[in-house]
């Protein structure tokens, strides 16, 4: 009986973690799907978002400001990475790009430790978000609901831009028919660069929000990166809806896994990935390419 009563709240827990995961994964899947670059440094960019936000908060005390400035800074880093590093190795193929971003992830992690130290950091969130909301006999942290809200907003905006605007059409077309788009007078390298910036900014935003929730610490990139790759594979490379669905599934699998089969909880997402790879190798909502 008691088990039944925790089901709704356990669902909510899984939903919140899943949505944060989606926030980080959205940028990764966009970049991967459209540029074919598996950005290993994406988790590190997410971590940078959290640390930038910490510093901005320390200087200004403005959480809302950090929610804007930190993603912009991380996005700018994304642009620099694309323009000055990735573009240079692009012609050598994906293996080089992968190795480059892999190395970058390490460098960023060491830089973070060097600048901010090894200790986890205390991030003060606004009073209106730090409390708990009471409904019926359930106490739920306001901040977790805030994560939910932000993720839904990001998904909606991204979805509208990609599928309902001219910019979105150019982006999607630049991926599959880059020469044709180029011939139409659109600067494809510029599109890729901006896309990398947007992807970075999304990771940065996820970091700002994820920091106070999962604790801003130098290990936060490493702990989320595996989940990220599972999301990309399960959802389908480059599919925004796929990333949303996969994030949701992984969040719920972890949450209910802990409730029902705790010994197996960690393994469940990989089980899901294995099943997807066997049954539908292109991912749940991926294109057959």
């Amino acid at each position, binding site marked *: 009986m008691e088990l039944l009563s*925790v089901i709704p709240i356990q669902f909510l*827990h899984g939903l919140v*973690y899943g949505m944060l995961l989606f926030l980080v994964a959205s940028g990764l899947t966009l970049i991967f799907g459209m540029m074919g670059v598996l950005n290993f440094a994406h988790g590190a960019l997410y971590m940078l978002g959290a640390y930038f936000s910490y510093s901005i908060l320390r200087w200004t005390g403005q959480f809302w400001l950090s929610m804007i400035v930190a993603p912009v800074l991380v996005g700018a880093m994304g642009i620099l990475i694309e323009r000055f590093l990735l573009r240079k190795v692009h012609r050598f193929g994906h293996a080089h790009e992968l190795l480059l971003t892999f190395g970058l992830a390490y460098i960023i992690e060491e830089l973070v430790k060097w600048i901010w130290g*090894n200790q986890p950091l*205390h991030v003060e969130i606004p009073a209106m978000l730090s409390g708990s909301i009471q409904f019926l006999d359930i106490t739920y942290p306001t901040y977790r609901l805030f994560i939910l809200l932000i993720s839904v907003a990001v998904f909606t905006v991204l979805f509208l831009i990609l599928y309902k605007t001219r910019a979105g059409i150019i982006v999607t077309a630049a991926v599959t028919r880059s020469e044709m788009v180029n011939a139409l007078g659109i600067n494809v390298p510029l599109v890729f660069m901006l896309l990398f910036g947007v992807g970075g900014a999304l990771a940065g935003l996820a970091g700002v929000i994820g920091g106070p929730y999962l*604790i801003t610490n130098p290990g936060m990139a490493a702990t989320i990166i595996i989940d990220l790759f599972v999301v990309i594979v399960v959802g389908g490379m480059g599919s925004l809806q796929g990333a949303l669905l996969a994030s949701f599934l992984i969040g719920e699998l*972890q949450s*209910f896994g802990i*409730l029902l089969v*705790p010994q197996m909880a960690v393994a469940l997402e990989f089980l899901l990935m294995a099943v997807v790879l066997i049954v539908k190798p292109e991912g749940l909502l991926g294109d057959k390419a």
Partner: protein
Amino acid sequence: MKRTIFGGIVGMMGICLLLGTVVWSADTVNFGVCEIRSGAFKDNGDRTIWGIEAAVNEANSKGGLLGKKIELVIEDNQGKGEIGVQKAKKLVMQDNCVVVIQGSSSGVGGAIGQAMPRLKRIYLDTNAEAMDITGKNFNPYVFRTCLNAGMHVKALAHYFGKKTQYRKVFLINQDYSWGYDVAKYYEAAIKQFAPNTQVVGKEFHQVFNKDFAPYVSKITASGADYVISGNWGTDLTQLVVQSRKLGMKIPIGATFLDDDGVMNIAREAAEGCIQANMYILGIDSDKARAFEDTFHKYSGGKWPSFVIMEAYIGTKMFIEAVRKAGSFDTDKIIKAFEGMTWDGPIGPITMRPEDHQAQMPAVIAEYASKTKYYDFPYLKPIMTIPASEISVSLEESGWKPYKE
């Protein structure tokens, strides 16, 4: 001609260097530190080394050890047992260290410990608490100066066992040997102190678990009236913070809440938590104050908390053992260390001769909104438990005599 002059200069420099080294090594003695110096757990290594350094600075400023200045030779074990063993070998054979100190990891500590009979030097375990190190895998070259898992949780069981309102416990721990030790020995200890206690839940989660909310809801649903957790680092912070935010108010009994890094984040959420260890800052006695102030002086303004304190005490005890032995000879130090009693900040610490596990009292602490040590909430001591109450017998520790 030029070449001969050059050769001559190089040769002379070589001789000077050689002589220099000989003179230098006659005046100093090397202590080896095989700690984690890279990766995600580097912070643990940093703190252990702060404690060791303070003890060494203190000894050196008071005339050194047996007339020699102590030098630390620090190596990175990278958190891996096999690398730890390699580095321990290097510290003994190349640097001629009289001791190898490691505390951050029970895994690495166990591996180094088992390599020492071949190297015939002492491994000093200042803060790794896995039972096997002085239990199943005991050998005469290993000495542990901190609590072991069994003693550590026995202190918590003593506290909760004496309070009759706490009879339903939920055990939540990390999914590796340390977490299993905590759960196993807590169950055994609570049977001794409060046999009518019911274990309403027992969970093991991955180290660096991301979201604790699902566990918190499970604990709440279990009807537990208190929680015991051997978690450390972000796993402890997350457990404490998320449980309070989700409205769970029952006490959490912890073994590593004295980590100021954890308290800096947990802050008010730690209200109602209970912490046990061999010492806690703020004991109201002249001896404890002297202990803290001495550390503060020789550490460059730090406080002896958490593993910093354990590494400090351990290194001081080893130095004392060498003084008692009057020699750097391993066998003589072992003889002097066995059964030695050191005057600790809250009472004597005695090295049990059979298994080389130090026997000592423990302190229980609770949340304090303000202390003189940190600019965020920390802990304050509420009671001490005598050594005899938390002692774990040789048999309970799974101790086996050493066979060569």
